[in-house]
Structures are given as C-alpha cells and as structure tokens.
C-alpha cells in the first residue's frame, strides 16, 4: 500500500490548522485505515489526533463523566471512573478483539456513525452530549443530533470531536446489553439491544431502550419505552410489545443478515431483556 501522507500535530491548535487545510482525522485507524485499504477512501492528508492531550481527558464532574474522544475502548474499560456506568463497560467489552479495543477510540466509533457502532448504544441510552471543537470554538450536541444517518454526522469540515459527556443516570437502573452477531469476535452486530430499566416492586418504573443495526442509525424505540411503564417484569407480560418493537425497526438486508431476520432478532432481544431483569419474588 502506498503510504498516505500523515502528520502528528503537537497540539490541538496545530491539528485544527491541518484540518482547515483539508486533512482528515486519524485516531486508532481501525476504521479509516480499513476503508483506505479497501479503496473506499483516499484522504489527501491524515492528521493523527490519537495522542492530543486535549482529547485524552477523563473527568468526573459529579453529574457525569467527560470522556476525551481519543481514549481507547480498553482504556475506558480499565478506568475506575467508568464503574459508575456499567452500560458503557457492557457495550465496550463486546467490541472486536483485545487488539481492536486497545486501538479503537470512542471518538472514532462515534464519527464512523455506523448503525452497528456498539458504543453508540450506550451513548444513546445515557443521552450523551458530544463536544465539538473547530476554528469557531466549541459547541455541544446531543448524540441523537450529532448522528445524522449511516456514516453521517453533524461534524463540519475542520471540526474535531473533543469529548463526550456521559450523564450518570438517576437512581439505580438495571443495565442490559446483548448483541447477536455471526462470529463471536470481530464481526459487527446483526442486531443489538441495550437498556436501562428502573424497576420498583417488580414493575417497570421507567425504561430506556436502544437498538443497534436495525435501522440507519441506533434507535430509541420510544413507543416501547412508554408502553413498558408499569408492566410487571416477566416475559409473558411483554409479549404484545414484540410487534411494537419490530415495527419501530427499519432494517436493511445485507451480507450479514436479511431485514426480516433482524426484525425477529430484535423482538427476541426484548424478551431476553425481560428475562434478565430480577423478577418479582
């Protein structure tokens, strides 16, 4: 492979200058270098942002965790501060292999904006805010507005993702993540479901659900979330929600699975969630 021109800026402002000249950010490289290799992309300059100190912060604000975009999945999994966000750890553990987790970053996963991006499921559930930095300064966007579609984000030319703010969810929700894929490691999900569920006296008090790989973006099936409120925690009591959940999906057929299969899997994942919650004694 002919080497792509690449630079390693010494700080954020130098990085922004290179981006203004048309450079493309490079972090772990696990997405962008694969795309280049497959001939899907040929950036004129790669700007390595993976070690910029400004992108490597990890800060507990009391309300939540501010996570630098260039932190790797492995770093986040190992950091004691993420213990308060079990859902984040649950999704990150399923990404790729140990090497992919040691290389890939949260910012890279976010900007790739794949409907199968596992970290996105946690970001949607936690109602994360994305902090962008560009020539005009900083701005914040909710993750659902940052992601515009498959592989499309609100990132303007010349902008970087600086960090992601992950608010601590109130109370003590149960967290759940399950992904169905074809090969155990590496292969990207066919469908996944993540959830935060607040349970009181054997009934659902509140629920947040996020589905991966069954629509152009990660999706919060709000109708199902609302219909769950007050339900007993038992798969039998959720059966009628399966069609509602399937209806919320807009899956595609591709090499990995047909749309119909994805819809069915999503429904089954809902029942798996009901099973995983502590049932009323």
């Amino acid at each position: 492979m002919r080497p792509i021109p690449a630079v390693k800026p010494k700080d954020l402002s130098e990085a922004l200058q290179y981006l203004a000249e048309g450079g493309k950010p490079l972090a772990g490289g696990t997405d962008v270098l694969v795309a280049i290799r497959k001939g899907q992309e040929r950036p004129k300059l790669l700007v390595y942002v993976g070690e910029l100190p400004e992108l490597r912060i990890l800060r507990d604000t009391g309300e939540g965790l501010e996570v630098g975009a260039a932190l790797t999945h492995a770093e986040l999994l190992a950091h004691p501060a993420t213990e308060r966000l079990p859902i984040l750890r649950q999704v990150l553990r399923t990404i790729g292999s140990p090497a992919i987790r040691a290389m890939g970053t949260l910012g890279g996963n976010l900007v790739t904006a794949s409907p199968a991006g596992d970290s996105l499921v946690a970001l949607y559930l936690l109602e994360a805010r994305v902090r962008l930095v560009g020539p005009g300064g900083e701005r914040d966007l909710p993750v659902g507005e940052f992601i515009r579609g498959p592989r499309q984000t609100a990132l303007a030319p010349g902008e970087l993702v600086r960090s992601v703010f992950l608010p601590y969810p109130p109370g003590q929700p149960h967290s759940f993540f399950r992904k169905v894929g074809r090969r155990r490691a590496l292969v990207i999900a066919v469908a996944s479901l993540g959830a935060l569920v607040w349970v009181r006296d054997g009934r659902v008090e509140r629920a947040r659900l996020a589905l991966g790989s069954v629509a152009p973006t990660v999706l919060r099936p709000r109708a199902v979330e609302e219909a769950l409120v007050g339900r007993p925690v038992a798969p039998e009591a959720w059966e009628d929600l399966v069609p509602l959940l399937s209806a919320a999906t807009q899956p595609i057929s591709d090499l990995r699975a047909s749309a119909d299969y994805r819809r069915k899997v999503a429904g089954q994942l809902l029942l798996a969630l009901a099973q995983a919650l502590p049932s009323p004694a």
Partner: protein
Amino acid sequence: MRLRFRLNGRDVELDVPPGRRLLDLLREDLGLIGTKEGCGEGECGACTVVVDGQPRLSCLTLAIHVEGKEVLTVEGLAQRGGLHPLQEAFVETAGVQCGFCTPGFLMAAYALLLRNPHPTPAEVREWLSGNLCRCTGYKQIEEAVLRAAEKLRHVQEA
C-alpha cells in the same frame, strides 16, 4: 519523518514516511519478517505485535502511531538464546502447524499474560478471538497458553 521508537528492547531510529504501515516498516525496512500479513484489514490477527504492553495490529498501525513507543515483535520474545516459555508450549502442544498464524497468537498471548498471569480457559479463548488459525482447531493453542502461564508462574516463584 525521523522516527524514533524502541523495538525489542533497543532504540531504533530511521527515516520513513509517517503514513508507512508498521507491518511494512518491520518486514521491509527492518527485515523482521516474523510478523505476518494475513488479511491486511484487521480480521485475522496474524500481524499482532505488542505496543506499550497492549496488543496491536501492525497492518492497521502507521509509523506515527509508534513514535516514542515500546514495540515488541516475535523476534524479541526469545531472549538469552532460548525460546520463550510461550514458544516452548506452542511446540509441545502442537499449537504450531503451518506456523503462519503463530507469531500473531504468541504476541496476543504475551499481552494477555502480562495483565493476567492466571487466565482461565474461557479467558484465553476470549482474548485470542481476534486471531485466526486454519490448521490447529484452536484447542492446542489454548492448551499452549495455559501451559505457558503455568511455566511462567513457576519461573517467577523460583
């Protein structure tokens, strides 16, 4: 760029394009052909090396990624003349057949034992899930890693 890093315990300095793949840099510029290229896209693990104690795929790593870092390849495993206990164990369990995948498995396993000297069989399997082998059926590799872990514990206790 003038690239400086540590490779198998030695300081290395060379002129390379910053976008050169670590894999090519090792194999072509430095003649270290132990590291193998299987898929070139992150899927097979044949190119695994250890960077600052973490497993890394050298096919998806550029020169700039390793500037100032400590890189270990399979050539750096066997020290003081003899094979590393991991290498011995791979030989003993027939975890090596054609051998193409072996350097990648060795380096991934090395990174595992660095952080977890007492892995369970399930942990070994999970950790090596990014490495493919077309010959052995994996069982022998799993055994090799468990056996090596035991050997290394003895070495440390002695």
